[in-house]
């Protein structure tokens, strides 16, 4: 059990809080730049060198704008919703180890709450509260588009929480712990979880995209159909809080992907268990950056799903696959089979899911209308 030190913890909290906000703001700029390059444009380049100060300009704009609340809105809940969005997003970062963590109690732990045994449960518990922000925001706006966005979001997030939870069950079973630090430590000796759980990673990533309301699952705010979805009526700093929450969520899930499946701060030959903490920090930052860039790559590559396709994907594809994966892991753990068996099994499950395509075609005759 780790001792609780007041001042180091407080300083960590303040630093993380500021760093997350700044990074989230900066990610908006990165996203715009990447989007621009993918569309053969240049992107923001007017404010400061290479447009780097665009973040400040955007922030200033959000702060200085008039705070406007619609007359028919439920004022209390309307103001509460963005607060929930940002709070839950920030809070779930409390147990995420963002650097080296040690069993040595004297060393500095790169996590706000070290040694929390319910680790990943805490993250899921907090981040599933984020749906309230969207539902309440959509409802309190007293606007049809906002309402539709909120409804879609509630259905989507509740559906995708199931494959999200199921997909990490395999990792948890293999490790025998919910603690994110333990999960990282196990991967330094036993190999990264991606080799045993590639299917689970795929499912986790897909569900995480949906949880973050990122394209191709951004139906709650799909601009083309719903104006702005749940944040149609929001402006100024309240809107900024929603957006900030979304980006912080993105950072958190990127960290989770790295910690659960890609060995956290571990990297062969660069950051082993005995490496200096700075190497571990660099490695984990590099990996997280990769996944955030992947988020953006996906956003500007894949088109949005239709709502029934979205639901079909969660209930008909992701959940059965996740269940099959969990059962496979249970067999491996129970009968003490080498976990390497899980690699071909995972691929087998994935290919098997697509196997009905190989079935001989029934009713080869083209459909004819009845007279």
């Amino acid at each position: 059990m780790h001792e609780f030190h007041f001042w180091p913890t407080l300083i960590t909290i303040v630093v993380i809080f500021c760093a997350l906000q700044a990074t989230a703001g900066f990610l908006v700029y990165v996203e715009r730049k990447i989007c621009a390059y993918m569309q053969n444009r240049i992107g923001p380049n007017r404010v400061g060198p290479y447009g780097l100060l665009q973040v400040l300009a955007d922030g200033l704009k959000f702060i200085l704008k008039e705070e406007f609340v619609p007359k028919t809105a439920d004022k209390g809940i309307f103001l509460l919703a963005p607060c929930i969005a940002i709070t839950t997003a920030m809070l779930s970062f409390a147990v995420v180890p963002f650097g080296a963590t040690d069993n040595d109690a004297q060393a500095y732990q790169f996590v706000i709450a070290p040694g929390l045994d319910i680790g990943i449960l805490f993250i899921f518990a907090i981040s599933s509260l984020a749906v309230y922000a969207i539902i309440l925001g959509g409802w309190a706006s007293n606007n049809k588009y906002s309402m539709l966005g909120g409804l879609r979001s509630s259905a989507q997030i509740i559906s995708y929480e199931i494959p999200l939870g199921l997909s990490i069950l395999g990792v948890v079973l293999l490790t025998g712990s919910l603690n994110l630090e333990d999960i990282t430590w196990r991967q330094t000796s036993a190999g990264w979880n991606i080799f045993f759980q590639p299917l689970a990673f795929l499912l986790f990533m897909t569900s995480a995209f949906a949880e973050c309301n990122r394209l191709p699952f951004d139906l709650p705010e799909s601009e083309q159909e719903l104006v702005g979805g749940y944040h149609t009526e929001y402006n100024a700093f309240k809107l900024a809080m929603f957006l900030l929450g979304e980006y912080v969520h993105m950072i958190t899930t990127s960290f989770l992907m790295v910690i659960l499946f890609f060995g956290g701060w571990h990297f062969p030959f660069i950051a082993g268990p005995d490496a200096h903490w700075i190497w571990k920090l660099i490695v984990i930052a590099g990996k997280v950056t990769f996944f955030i860039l992947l988020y953006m790559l996906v956003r500007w590559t894949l088109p949005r799903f239709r709502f029934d396709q979205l639901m079909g994907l969660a209930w008909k594809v992701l959940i059965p696959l996740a269940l099959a994966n969990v059962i496979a892991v249970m067999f491996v753990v129970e009968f003490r089979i080498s976990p390497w068996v899980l690699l071909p099994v995972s691929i087998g499950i994935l290919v098997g899911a697509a196997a009905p395509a190989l079935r001989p075609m029934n009713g080869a005759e083209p459909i004819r209308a009845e007279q």
Partner: protein
Amino acid sequence: MPMKDEDVRWVKAPRMGLVEKLYIPAIMQGFQTTLKHMFSPNVTQQYPEEKPKLPANYRGVHRLNRDEEGRVKCVACYMCSTACPARCIDIVAAPSPWPDREKYPEVFVIDELRCIYCGMCEQACPCDAIELTTLFDHTGLSREEMMFDKEKLLSVFDQTVAAGTDPIRTRSGKLSIASEPIASEPIASEPKASAPKV
């Protein structure tokens, strides 16, 4: 009349194979496309710093051409204002102070806001006195400012010729046959007339 049954061809959506059903190869293909665009050259034109290179036949702001002696080339024949579908050209003719033509425009005003930039004035002009330039970003703070008078239109000529964006395209110096009192030589054999009009 309803469509005959044999004319209707029923098509079934093609079935997806195993690889397509996995979706992952298709997604990778999508990434390939976006990444390829990411590292290909940009098409952005940084507008205020970088002006577009417009083709010479671009139809922008008008200009009134000068002849070799720097006089206005126009002979106030009213062909342009007659051809103008927007009726934006207002000419007042006066007896010419110069011996080589009968009339010259005392007032020549084009309402640039009313103009539709169709270029029919340019086509109608018998002595190539009015031309449309590649100037496209003229602005004004009032409607009166956008009524371009003779001096303004001549200054557009000076400006565009000096800037080299619209060189003098037509026969310079000589006025056209419409204004020449003595037809010393037929226009077809005039060697200077061969300059192609773009």
